[in-house]
């Protein structure tokens, strides 16, 4: 084919860079709306910010906004009360530290220096969280927003995973009306979190709510969940689980329905019990999906804010306040610097915990599934 050399080279150049052209708009948007604000917020996190008639006025304060969460007057709010430390707290802390250090020592033979660096960061976070756990919760002291958040993430995701997977398993069985239940179970996920918050507030009202007669029958007519820290956190988790179990349910249902029927039928022919079939055939095939779903759910759970904001305003005290809600309240007071610092601490916590979970659990399960 004849053509000018200029046109050919132009066409070739376009072809050669077509991938860049296609991806450029998305990359630009991400840079503008995600990456740039993330770095710009670091400026806020290291400043005291005041609103003036001429706009925002910054005063650089270094890491002071971060430091006060650990050592200043926000320490109890963020970490919880860490004194006095009980013997149980010290023992658990010591056991965790030794375990983590042994794990780290053994890791040096099976990973690269980059992997070793990552494991050191994970180990440092584990030791820090173990110290806070031992000094606060296990010593009978109040916990701060960091462990309230972890409570929502770890216990909440655990409960949601067990119930969601159980419901998915039931709906994957050949029972009548299962399509109806699938739709019913999925509905809460479509409700806005604000709606869930207000609905749960009405449902959990101990004086006028639907459970008031039941509470009276069992002698709990004077029980008020909203004034006790743990019952308030528990009710919060009930609301959160009501909304998010459907997410686990729908993902796990898809995974369960992808398990080849011939494997299951072969096991049945060989006389395997239902429990054996689930343990030996079904579970190994759905575990990659399960850990991935848990990871996604955990990332989302770290950001819980609507329910405690609506149901208790973070109270009693600050006992239902997650780190996101803490950041929101500080931001609402126009203390933008401290708010950004708390948001960064949440980002660091989320990234390290989720990356650790991904590296040491998800990837392992995916490798095992391939084998």
């Amino acid at each position, binding site marked *: 084919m004849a053509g000018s050399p200029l046109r050919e080279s132009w066409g070739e150049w376009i072809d050669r860079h077509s991938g860049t052209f296609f991806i450029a708009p998305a990359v630009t948007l991400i840079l503008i709306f995600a990456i740039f604000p993330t770095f710009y917020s670091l400026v806020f996190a290291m400043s005291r910010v005041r609103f*003036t008639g001429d706009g*925002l006025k910054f005063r650089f304060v270094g890491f002071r906004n971060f430091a006060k969460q650990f050592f200043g007057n926000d320490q109890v709010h963020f970490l919880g009360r860490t004194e006095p430390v009980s013997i149980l707290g010290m023992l658990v802390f010591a056991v965790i530290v030794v375990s983590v250090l042994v794990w780290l020592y053994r890791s040096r033979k099976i990973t690269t220096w980059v992997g070793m660096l990552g494991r050191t960061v994970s180990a440092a976070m584990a030791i820090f969280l173990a110290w806070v756990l031992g000094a606060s919760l296990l010593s009978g002291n109040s916990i701060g927003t960091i462990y309230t958040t972890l409570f929502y993430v770890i216990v909440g995701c655990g409960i949601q995973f067990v119930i969601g997977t159980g419901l998915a398993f039931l709906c994957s069985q050949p029972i009548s009306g299962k399509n109806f239940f699938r739709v019913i179970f999925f509905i809460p996920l479509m409700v806005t979190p604000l709606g869930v918050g207000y609905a749960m507030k009405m449902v959990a009202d101990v004086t006028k709510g639907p459970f008031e007669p039941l509470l009276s029958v069992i002698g709990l007519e004077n029980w*008020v969940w909203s*004034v006790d820290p743990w019952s308030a956190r528990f009710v919060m988790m009930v609301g959160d689980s009501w909304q998010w179990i459907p997410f686990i349910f729908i993902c796990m249902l898809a995974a369960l329905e992808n398990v080849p029927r011939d494997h299951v039928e072969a096991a049945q022919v060989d006389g395997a019990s239902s429990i054996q079939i689930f343990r030996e055939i079904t579970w190994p095939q759905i575990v990659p999906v399960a850990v991935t779903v848990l990871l996604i759910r955990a990332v989302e759970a770290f950001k819980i804010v609507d329910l405690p904001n609506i149901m208790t305003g*973070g109270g009693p*005290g600050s006992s239902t306040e997650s780190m996101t809600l803490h950041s929101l309240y500080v931001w609402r007071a126009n203390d933008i610097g401290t708010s950004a610092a708390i948001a960064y601490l949440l980002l660091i916590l989320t990234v390290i915990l989720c990356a650790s979970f991904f590296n040491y659990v998800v990837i392992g399960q995916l490798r095992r599934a391939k084998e």
Partner: protein
Amino acid sequence: MPIRNNLLGLVVGASALAGHSPAAMAGEFDGVTVNILTRPGYVIAGRLAERGVEFEAATGGKIVVTEVPFAEIFPKIQQDWSTGTNSIDVGVFAAGWGVELDASGLLEDLDPYVAADDKIDLDDIAPYFREFGQKVGGKTKLLMVDGDFQMVYYRKDVLENAGLEPPKTWEDYLDVASQIHGQDMNGDGEADFGSCIFKKRNAQSYFAVQTFAAPIVQTQGTGQGFHFDSATMKPIVNNDGWKKAFELYKETGKYGPPEELNMDIGDTRAIFKAGRCGLLVEWGDPGPLQLDDDATAVKGLIYAVAAVGSREVLDRETGKLVPVTSENAPHAVDGINYAPFAAFGGWAGAINKKADQKKKDAAYAFLSYMNQAEQSSVDVTIGATGYNPYRLSQLASPDLFVEAGMPQELAENYIGAINAALNSLNMASDMKIPGAANYTGVVLDTELARYLAGEVTVEEALENIEAGWEEITEDFGRDEQIEAQGLALGTGN
């Protein structure tokens, strides 16, 4: 909701606008929309919207009222006006918050508008609200729509049946509450509560604890203040005076509703109207609120005392409590130091300096309309509006409230309590310095909530408040805050 009062208000208001107001020329504000931001619910916002309809009918100016949660009012206005968004033309908020906005040059100077307004009659506004509430740095920057004091209310019938006197000190308050707690006060067969105080975090709980602290900490008159040492702006909060106030405040929870820590002002108002509260710490609203159709259980039974005092006061030198004497508390009566707390200072409207001139004109005309006696003297008699008396003509005699349906004796008690608070030489003023919303609405509120929930001890809470207040003072500049505090308390230049 007392419908007759609303209708009366609408008729009176419409005729006032149509006939007299200088801003009432038909069509003067055609096509102008004034956006107002304030708190949620009918209280405060509802009446603004209703009066806005009258205003639009008379002048063509449209009033749009946007409601946000209480804790978001100030930051939203500050962000909107500072960053040049300017989606809000008028903010209706605590009078004391205006000083911070004015320090940033965000408030329109209303003096020229007032000078041309022959309807507003500023001399009729009680001096405290006119000088403290409406003025910043000697210039009128806000117009009141409400006047606020926190008082103690009691069920006259319940106390009389129990042979008890209304409390004079906070110890008396606890004693009365303990004796009437558990009684059936509304005849429904259920045990009711000795004391009701809204204690929910991020709401308005932190005002009531200041009502407890004021008579213990402030002894030398309004100019002394009870939050800071005015000369140094060092907080005077980490001491035995505030400690006692915190402990007394927490103690009231023993005689309150079980869910009191999660109750906002609307929740406590609902239960006191249902006849379930023997004692109540509140603003001026319960007086007229008991006339509402849904308050038949307490109609004519809720009486007020201007202030509850203390027999011990803070020695600021030592940080310890000492018995009241004529030297350390010259305003004390019968060995009790009283310091009625002008909590919140009243709701007031301020205009965004950067708004268009036409909008500013319409905004001022509307705020003036709300403030004028013809309207406000109706609004303050309706409990649900959230507006309390702030004009001398409203406080001169009980007639206004008798006409609204209050029994003569109750109206005299109600007006008498407000007048006693307003005329007290030791009246405790709310903060009116830059950062006021943060000092109390964030730092004090958070630590108080954590103390009430048992997360921190009272000593830790007070230490944290002291540190938090110092941080805010440093942010705004200590010298600037000292000057602002002097102006706020009337002791500076």
